[in-house]
């Protein structure tokens, strides 16, 4: 199923400069594996060596952070928008 994955500027050089990549998969883990498989420069950046999400990366499915859903097992469906974003200070201070 096609899922649009939006990448931050810092990761775009590893995907040929693209801001959005169309991928497929039924979970976030599957989608990210396809992303890293096709773009080896991303290895170790989005998913850390221990197989978990890099702590400096937040991944959202339609505005919900997957860390608080089912992490890499979070299901995705046709038309979902996935965003990969660096963790930054929110700015409420």
């Amino acid at each position, binding site marked *: 199923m096609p899922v649009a994955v939006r990448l*931050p*500027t*810092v*990761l775009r050089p590893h995907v040929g400069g693209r801001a959005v990549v169309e991928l497929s998969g039924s979970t976030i883990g599957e989608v990210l594996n396809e992303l890293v498989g096709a773009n080896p420069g991303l290895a170790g*950046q989005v998913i850390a060596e221990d197989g978990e999400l*890099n*702590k*400096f*990366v937040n991944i*959202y499915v339609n*505005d*919900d*952070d997957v*860390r*608080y*859903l089912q992490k890499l097992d979070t299901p995705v469906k046709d038309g979902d928008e996935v965003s990969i*974003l*660096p*963790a*930054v*200070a*929110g*700015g*409420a*201070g």
Partner: protein
Amino acid sequence: MARVQSVLELIGNTPMVDVSALSPNPNVKIYTKLEGRNPAGSVKDRVALSLVEQAEADGILTPGKPGQILIEPSSGNTGIALAMVCRLKGYHLKVVLPTNVSIERRQLLEVFGAEIIESPGSEGSNGAVRMARQLASEHPEWTFLYQYANPANPKAHYEHTGPEIFRDCPEITHFVAGLGTSGTLLGVGRYLKEQDPAIQVWAIEPPTGEMVDGLRNLDDGYIPPIFAELGGAEILDRKTVVRPKESIEWTRKMTDLGLFVGISSGAIMAGAVRCASQIPEGETATIVTIACDDGWKYLSTGAWTDDIDTVVERAKKVIYF
């Protein structure tokens, strides 16, 4: 408490108001705690007082001793609250402030005599944090309270905001608040889960916008040290982004109930509405949200009166959380 010795005694014990009229689900009640009632106008009064009093208790600051300087990164409210506390106690405050905050936030810092050091707006709060850390390391004689890493920040909410919420609304099932330093969510969330582990804690955050474009690599990202150290990931049950348009729409809807609150309070209300609409049919719930501040500091953005699309474009360029 109608007569007090010091304005500091007016911090906390804020009222909670029923906003269920805005709930999309008749089985879900929503209450909002009006933190704009604090004397310097926001939830950050609690944090500022806690940070300064802890530093005094630890002997880092000495009341009445001349020449004491503090430095702090803030997009506004913590700076304003600290400026008020420092003015009253005789400390000199330097605030590292991103250039893209509303003019009123800047003016309020000046009202209380804080010195403003500008950080690049394009780097958002991250840039202010980075610059303050750099300046603090170059000036070890300055006191750097560092709200993002100081346990006195969540402690203020663990000891006061959380107990106030549970006292006023013991039937609470969900707590929804904004994520910045994470102090409110960690302090209140931990307290509430100790009372009833079933209480759900939802974090609402603004989109990161163009700010993240300035990052050179992922390790330039930033997680508040208190979030990591105090097990933030275990306390939060959900983290969700609310976009500027929805934030402003809900800020406006709150005026139907006579509530003139800041834009982040509208974002948090939008998050509470999202939460209410996900409560399964046949179940009841009681959501408590935080309205961080009132609307005064955002009048210049035209949030209530200008064309909504114009306001949304403006909001994307300023830090309103």
